[in-house]
């Protein structure tokens, strides 16, 4: 080994604490990168493979009822490669002894396995057999959540008729990766399942012999999705078509896209923060190293080493840190990525989902680490290269100190000599001081920006579940009903209030933009369902015209006062031009609202009740649910508390795990920054500190010189950190918002508080560890040497 390389290894070992602290920050960048990019890649690849293998369709359409012959007509539309018709039917399931409502979506499946689109993957068992109408394949998550098995039987109410279903297989399909019951915002595997039943059996059970109510379509390469959708809508219009839509509006696919988008956003925001801090840390540590090794550099150059050899020597120091960081970061990233993938596997139903270690991702992380370390090293390396040997061997000029503005103020406040030492040292090294302040501030900002997602989710939850929804139960009907149904519900003992709601599927068009949305309405005296805007105030339905959610209005580029065209999907396909009266800030979904009268004008039907909202006496819950289960008109019952619990469980599982990671990461920044500043400070001031000890200062007082400077810098970072956190949180909530969720920016004081406390603890704990070195100050040795 060459002598210079030997020096490099010894330098790395001598400065191992600082090397490790920088590597920790760089490793955090590499880890988040490897985690989020790796999970993103794993999810994307798994999804794409699954979609391709099981022939996930490109366009989907629903209708009230159409003859099977319509499939051929759709298949003939230019741009359509394949079309396949099926029946989808909701059913309620009756588990003896269980009062909680359970729903299932039944899908027709070809008994011979000849389906071409959205193909079922059997995990166990077999397909239903022709001539055995009760045989079903059930989705894996539902089977697990309800402790069912092949051979289990379930009583179902299908299309108003009771039927015993027998599970003969367990499976999953690409159109139900994320399975949501209607009206739910979070999957509940124990209350909602997807079943596949023989086509003939489902036709018989739903009186749809040789008829369908759903279509799936694949497109030829290069076909225009919009054109095909328009043509399909025209074909299906006479059959109550509810509007064809592409993958982006397919619920399961949209949730998956949303997740991928968030992972992507995370990759773009978080690693850069760590990388920035790491650049600064390498810059100050290498800068200090080169300053202390000035004479050695001069000597080595005098021996005849080239400038390039010296520069490369110091650059290698930075690259060695990057190598260590890449190894640590990749290992941590793979571990976290696997944990996160396991979490995803609970919510997304894939036949296989493993975190795959992807060499390009690891290489990407390595490239980032090396680039950041190299960039940080640039300043120091340049200084080392530029140093002339003779000049380098002479002692450096003494640092120039001067009293700054702060001190002139401080003089009045009666600064002690120690106080002057602290303040002037900060002012003497403004760049390094600023880096310390910025580094700790970034750590606090990052922590805040990530922990406030909890506030954001809770605000969304509160708005959705407590302010907007005041009912206890939502009862959906098999088909729209008249007021008799409401009356029947009101008769159940323990039901305190019943209110109707209805929603019609419509296409809202403005210029060349159009969006599918449900237009919801409630009666003027409604108390159970209220539209709440971002600030938490209830907004009344406009007597005429539409109220749009902000999300929808933005997509259509409309403002209050504009007029839009509304085309009802299904039914009579009414087309109306309506004014947009108001915009409401909502967090979940894209929705439109209108008064009952307006919706009646669009729908023009006589059965205006699509669902009923119930407020009940909690003591009567079980009895009410039992009774609802026996009512043939009831399709499903959603319990608000159950949905809320599920949502909170998801936040706990998902967010808390992430937040623990981020507390670790943010602390890594604070520790890395403060440790390096403290070590440099200590090495620069060892001589002065020893002098103070000689003069009769106690260890604790001497320690204060170190801690005082660091404390000032850390305290200065608090307001900056809050500011950075505020900006970063706003950016991140915006980046994490999607068509499905619009995250509110609603940070709590507690989040600011916790971020500040955690960062202060990490920073000052680290500073105190370094300050303990004062114990080891050798007064005698230090004073013998020239400073």
């Amino acid at each position, binding site marked *: 080994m060459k002598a210079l390389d030997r020096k490099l290894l010894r330098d790395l070992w001598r400065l191992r604490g600082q090397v490790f602290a920088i590597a920790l920050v760089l490793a955090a960048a590499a880890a988040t990168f490897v985690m989020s990019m790796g999970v993103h890649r794993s999810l994307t690849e798994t999804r794409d493979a699954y979609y391709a293998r099981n022939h996930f369709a490109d366009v989907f359409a629903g209708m009230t009822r159409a003859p099977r012959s319509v499939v051929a007509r759709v298949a003939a539309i230019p741009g359509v490669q394949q079309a396949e018709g099926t029946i989808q039917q909701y059913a309620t399931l009756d588990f003896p002894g269980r009062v909680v409502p359970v729903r299932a979506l039944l899908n027709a499946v070809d008994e011979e396995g000849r389906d071409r689109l959205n193909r079922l993957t059997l995990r166990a068992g077999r397909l239903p057999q022709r001539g055995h109408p009760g045989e079903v394949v059930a989705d894996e998550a539902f089977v697990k959540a309800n402790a069912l098995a092949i051979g289990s039987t379930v009583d179902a109410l299908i299309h108003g008729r009771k039927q015993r279903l027998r599970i003969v297989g367990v499976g999953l399909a690409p159109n139900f990766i994320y399975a949501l019951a209607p009206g739910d915002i979070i999957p509940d595997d124990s209350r909602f399942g997807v079943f596949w039943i023989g086509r003939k059996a489902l036709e018989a059970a739903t009186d749809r012999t040789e008829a369908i109510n759903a279509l799936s379509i694949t497109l030829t390469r290069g076909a225009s999705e919009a054109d095909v959708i328009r043509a399909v809508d025209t074909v299906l219009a006479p059959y109550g078509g509810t509007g064809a839509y592409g993958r982006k509006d397919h619920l399961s696919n949209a949730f998956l896209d949303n997740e991928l988008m968030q992972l992507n956003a995370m990759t773009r925001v978080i690693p850069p923060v760590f990388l920035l801090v790491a650049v600064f840390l390498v810059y100050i540590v290498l800068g200090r190293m080169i300053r202390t090794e000035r004479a050695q550099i001069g000597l080595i150059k005098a021996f005849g080493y080239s400038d390039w050899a010296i520069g490369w020597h110091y650059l290698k120091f930075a690259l060695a840190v990057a190598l260590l960081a890449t190894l640590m970061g990749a290992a941590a990233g793979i571990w976290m990525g696997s944990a996160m993938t396991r979490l995803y596997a609970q919510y997304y139903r894939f036949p296989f989902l493993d975190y795959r270690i992807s060499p390009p991702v690891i290489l990407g992380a390595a490239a980032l680490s090396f680039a950041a370390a190299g960039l940080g090293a640039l300043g120091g390396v340049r200084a080392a290269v530029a140093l002339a040997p003779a000049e380098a061997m002479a002692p450096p000029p*003494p*640092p*120039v*100190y*001067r009293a700054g503005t702060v001190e002139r103020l401080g003089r009045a406040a009666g600064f*002690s*000599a*120690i106080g*002057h*030492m602290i303040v*002037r*040292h900060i002012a*003497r090294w403004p760049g390094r001081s600023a880096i310390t302040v910025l580094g700790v501030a970034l750590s606090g900002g990052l922590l805040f920006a990530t922990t406030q997602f909890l506030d954001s989710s809770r605000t969304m939850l509160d708005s959705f579940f407590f302010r907007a929804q005041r009912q206890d139960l939502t009862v959906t009907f098999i088909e729209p009903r008249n007021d008799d149904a409401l009356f029947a519900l009101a008769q159940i003992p323990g039901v305190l209030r019943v209110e109707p709601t209805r929603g019609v599927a419509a296409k809202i068009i403005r210029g060349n933009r159009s969006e599918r949305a449900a237009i919801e309405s409630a009666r003027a005296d409604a108390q159970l369902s209220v539209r709440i805007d971002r600030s938490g105030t209830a907004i009344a339905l406009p007597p005429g015209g539409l109220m749009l959610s902000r999300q929808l209005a933005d997509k259509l580029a409309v403002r209050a006062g504009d007029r839009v065209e509304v085309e009802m999907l299904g039914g009579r396909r009414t087309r109306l031009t309506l004014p947009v009266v108001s915009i409401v800030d909502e967090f979940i979904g894209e929705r439109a609202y209108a008064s009952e009268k307006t919706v009646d004008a669009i729908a023009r039907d006589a059965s205006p009740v699509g669902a009923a909202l119930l407020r009940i006496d909690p003591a009567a819950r079980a009895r009410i649910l039992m009774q609802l289960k026996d009512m043939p008109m009831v399709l499903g019952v959603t319990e608000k508390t159950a949905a809320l619990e599920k949502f909170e469980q998801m936040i706990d599982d998902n967010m808390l795990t992430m937040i623990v990671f981020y507390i670790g990461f943010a602390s890594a920044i604070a520790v890395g920054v403060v440790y390096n500043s403290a070590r440099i400070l200590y090495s620069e001031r060892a*001589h*002065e500190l020893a*002098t*103070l*000890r*000689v*003069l*009769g*200062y*106690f*260890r604790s*007082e001497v320690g204060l010189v170190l801690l005082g400077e660091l404390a000032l810098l850390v305290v200065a970072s608090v307001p900056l950190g809050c500011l950075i956190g505020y900006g970063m949180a706003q950016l991140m909530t915006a980046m994490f918002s999607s068509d499905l969720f619009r995250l509110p920016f609603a940070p709590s004081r507690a989040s600011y508080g916790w971020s500040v406390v955690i960062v202060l603890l990490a920073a000052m704990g680290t500073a105190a560890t370094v300050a303990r070195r004062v114990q080891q100050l050798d*007064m*005698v040795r230090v*004073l*013998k*040497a*020239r*400073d």
Partner: protein
Amino acid sequence: MSTSGTVEMDAAGNAAFTASALCKVYRTGETEVHALRGVDLEIPAGEVLVLLGPSGSGKSTLLNILGGLDRASSGSLRYRGTELTDMGDAELTRFRRANVGFIFQFYNLIPSLTAEENVRLVTDIAEHPMAAEEALALVGLADRRHHYPAQLSGGEQQRVAVARAIAKQPGVLLCDEPTGALDSKTGVRVLETLAQANRDLGTTVVIITHNAGIAAMAHRVLHFLDGRIARMEVNAHPVSPAGLSW
């Protein structure tokens, strides 16, 4: 003269330091270095004592032990009757704070503090200090009190160090090569300030030097060799530093 409440007056006499059989052994790995091999010494209060001897003869080790920067391995050392060898770190710090002024070859000023502030570093914590300006006036630097060390010459810096040492009105001034980095003329000025402190404040002064010429200003001169006092000279007529040259 300043005496700390923690240090009692020696009832028996007026000795500042009394050392008996003082030994110091440094252990570095397997090898032992005997820096002091049984030193017996009494330094009366108000004495100017010069320690001479080659490098490694033990004079700096003795000075450091006298000043409470280091602890003897065995033997006894009393300052005005109080045993120093049993003291812990905090007590030794308190002892230095109250009684000892140090002056070193390389000044050891804090570069970020002005001359006055360097002196205030001591007056901030001493029990009966003189004003910082007064101490600087004593060394003839009253007009340069707002200068930073980098703006002062070597001699001026050393005089600031002297002012810092005498500002607390210490019982004893311990000086390790105080003129080692200075030319003759500047060195003399520094020694004059030490003599003045001895004369006016009654401060005991111990000076280590390689420069035999300085010995003429001492009441006594100790010659060190191999960790022991090899020889002692008593100077019946110490000369004023102004009469010294080298």
